[in-house]
């Protein structure tokens, strides 16, 4: 006969207000095999756990039920306590009578809540009687990391992991690392030049022996699990041999063809063989195959003629390389919502309506105008500039419901940059609210208004149109209650921040969650902000949601510290919830092999002493098995079972309800 102890937690009044815990304990005492029952105010408290340990020893229990909160909260706590008392931790089961019972019942008479708690606890007791002692599985850890995305968050994560002495593979989709931050002119609230603080980090990453940078590359496939991922990375054809190229730039100089520059946000042109910007890391050009006449029509080839080291290779193909890593940091960043969606603001139709990132390029010393503010249509210096905030943000109908968080600050920065460059200019800002929460942020906005004379108008813009070479902005000033019509020379839209194209397909490859805006989900938004539901995969930067540079850097460092903590162990213990095969009954139909999503089931040959194969059997690789149980339900001969969720356990629970 088993010797089971049942501990019912009151959780203060969380459970006790709608569940009569004493009655639950008393009812459970009537069941066969239950030798101790009791209720307690806070089971998870130190005295609560000590009490549990003492009772386990005193009553020589061989199974423990704790009826309390969700197993996600305290299963670990109680299993540890039980282990300390000399019992196998998997002989302890948690019944959830808080989230799944007391919290969803409002019956003050406690009738329904008590009844349900009794049922749930009874089911758990019957299940527990079938529990086997299990021990954790030890698996080795590959101490190399993959960082996806070479923006500031990814670079920071890579640098921190590398500094911890571990190898990092930094994968970037564009021809150079740097991300969106490399495009910015200055950064709020310190007004230091973005490239001045960004490029040293980029160079540091490229010089660090522990960091291998793969630009113009994308993650294609991810297999495995924490500590043992296998990643396939597609290196897109660059048409330039990276080992030979010395970055002299002669090919770029001689290339006679041009295309729109992605880095300059389409405001100027670049050559067809190009590096996105002068400080690109690595300083190796890439050929834009779609626009290259040599690749398309076999005409030209000027770059190959002038190239000294002969590194241009028009026949180069995509290459897929495989890397084994133990942890992955995802830092894929953001992009701006396409402004074309906002026809009333004239973007795309009116040349002098530009986006926030385009203004950054205009103001940047390395930008298309060399840092002078000149409007795109005729190159004149604009004397009146209107900035429109919340374009798409906080607009559920046409855009997104969330606040893009950084626009209030960068618009204030834009007005200041503008004033510093065009002293007699006037800036106007249409805003909904000014959200300047952050260290020295509010002071920064005040400075824009008070020192640099930005005119802030609270209200929305209804229409932007062109008239006699001017851009007319019609809107409301809700503070004075007047309709406003401004004659502007240029309009800057603070468009919403959205997730990168393809964020969802990458999430599916990685097996991590994302929300309806395709921003990645943290494991817990407050307490596990850089972890994902998939162990060993961490998040950093704006792929999680809109955030500013300091936050992105913090997340990069935070996920690096998580990776290094993981790598500080030689092996890792994992839950023994795995499938195992009954070797007596398996008839080698291989349904399980087909069903297994992790390729964890192998075909094993059973041989006699002469080496003759007697029969074939399915064999589960415990390191790879994740314990989903798909094979169990697929097995026709009932020859596979899932430890911790055996058929026996489930039927026992079903029989008791």
């Amino acid at each position: 006969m088993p010797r089971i102890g049942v501990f019912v937690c009151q959780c203060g009044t969380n459970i006790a207000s709608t569940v009569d815990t004493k009655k639950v304990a008393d009812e459970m005492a009537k069941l066969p095999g239950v030798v101790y029952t009791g209720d307690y105010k806070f089971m998870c408290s130190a005295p609560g756990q000590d009490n549990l340990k003492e009772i386990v020893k005193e009553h020589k229990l061989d199974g423990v039920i704790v009826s309390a909160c969700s197993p996600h909260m305290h299963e670990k706590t109680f299993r540890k306590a039980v282990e300390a008392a000399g019992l196998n931790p998997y002989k302890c089961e948690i019944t959830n009578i808080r989230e799944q019972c007391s919290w969803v019942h409002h019956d003050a008479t406690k009738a329904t809540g008590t009844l349900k708690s009794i049922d749930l606890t009874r089911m758990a007791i019957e299940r527990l009687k079938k529990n086997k002692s299990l021990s954790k599985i030890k698996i080795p850890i590959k101490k190399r990391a993959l960082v996806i995305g070479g923006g500031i968050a990814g670079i920071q994560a890579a640098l921190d992991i590398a500094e911890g002495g571990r190898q990092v593979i930094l994968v970037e989709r564009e021809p150079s690392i740097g991300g969106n931050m490399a495009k910015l002119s200055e950064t709020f609230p310190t007004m230091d030049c973005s490239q001045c603080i960004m490029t040293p980090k980029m160079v540091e990453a490229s010089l660090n022996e522990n960091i291998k940078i793969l630009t113009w590359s994308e993650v294609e496939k991810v297999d495995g699990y924490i500590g043992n991922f296998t990643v396939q990375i597609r290196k897109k054809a660059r048409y330039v041999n990276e080992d030979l190229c010395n970055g002299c730039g002669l090919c770029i100089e001689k290339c006679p063809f041009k295309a729109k520059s992605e880095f300059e946000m389409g405001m100027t042109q670049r050559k067809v063989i190009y590096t996105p910007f002068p400080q690109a890391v690595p300083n190796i050009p890439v050929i834009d195959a779609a626009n290259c006449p040599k690749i398309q029509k076999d005409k030209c080839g000027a770059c190959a003629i002038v190239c000294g080291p002969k590194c241009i290779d028009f026949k180069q193909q995509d290459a897929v390389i495989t890397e084994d890593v133990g942890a992955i940091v995802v830092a894929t960043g953001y992009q701006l919502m396409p402004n074309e969606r906002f026809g009333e603001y004239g973007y795309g139709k009116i040349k002098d309506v530009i986006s926030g990132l385009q203004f950054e390029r205009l103001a940047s010393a390395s930008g298309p105008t060399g840092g002078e503010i000149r409007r795109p249509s005729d190159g004149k210096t604009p004397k009146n500039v209107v900035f429109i905030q919340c374009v798409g943000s906080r607009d559920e109908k046409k855009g997104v419901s969330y606040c893009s968080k950084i626009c209030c600050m960068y618009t204030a920065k834009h007005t200041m940059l503008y004033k510093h460059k065009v002293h007699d200019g006037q800036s106007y800002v249409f805003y909904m609210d000014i959200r300047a929460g952050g260290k020295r942020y509010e002071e920064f906005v005040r400075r824009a208004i008070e020192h640099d004379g930005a005119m802030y108008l609270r209200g929305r813009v209804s229409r932007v149109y062109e008239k006699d070479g001017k851009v007319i902005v019609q809107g409301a000033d809700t503070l004075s209650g007047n309709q406003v019509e401004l004659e502007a020379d240029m309009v800057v839209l603070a468009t919403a921040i959205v997730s990168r194209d393809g964020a969802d397909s990458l999430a599916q490859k990685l097996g991590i969650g994302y929300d309806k805006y395709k921003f990645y989900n943290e494991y817990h938004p407050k307490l596990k902000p850089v972890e994902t539901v998939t162990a060993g995969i961490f998040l950093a930067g704006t792929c999680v949601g809109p955030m500013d540079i300091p936050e992105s850097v913090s997340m990069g460092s935070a996920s690096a510290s998580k990776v290094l903590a993981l790598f500080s162990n030689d092996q890792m213990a994992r839950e023994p919830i795995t499938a195992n095969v009954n070797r007596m009954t398996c008839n080698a139909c291989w349904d399980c092999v087909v069903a297994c999503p992790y390729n964890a089931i192998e075909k094993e040959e059973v041989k006699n002493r002469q080496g003759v194969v007697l029969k074939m059997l399915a064999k589960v690789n415990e390191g790879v098995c994740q314990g989903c149980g798909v094979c169990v339900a697929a097995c026709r001969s009932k020859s596979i079972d899932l430890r911790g969720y055996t058929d026996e356990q489930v039927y026992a629970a079903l029989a008791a309800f």
Partner: protein
Amino acid sequence: MKANTILTLNPKSLPLCATGALMQARIWQARAGWSIVRIIKLPCTGRIDPLFIIKAFEKGADGVIVSGCHPGDCHYTTGNYHARRRWIAFKSLLEFTGIDMKRLHFSWVSASEAIKWVDLINNITDEVKKLGPFVEYRNLREAQ
């Protein structure tokens, strides 16, 4: 009191189903329907053997809800695709065995869909209450 018991096969792969969604459920005013729900935790909908469902009905459940991650968003990569395919094949067999399909529900609910989860439970419990106790299997057993 057991007359209207509903059994939920509630996958572990909804880590927040137990905490997050139900924490929010508290705010969204869950109704009395919850009191007749009993939950069986399993790692994945793919783990569900159709016999579990028949067993539940045999043991006195009046309705069964199978709920897990959305297809394409499986915590275990593809488990719910197996579950979905198995469900399609199994549904007609269950109908053949005499179970009213109004008593059996398959629904994809993600951990962040608290409102959907609450509505689902409320609607199904209301519907099953209207149908009354499922006595066919019990009668069969007694007849034997």
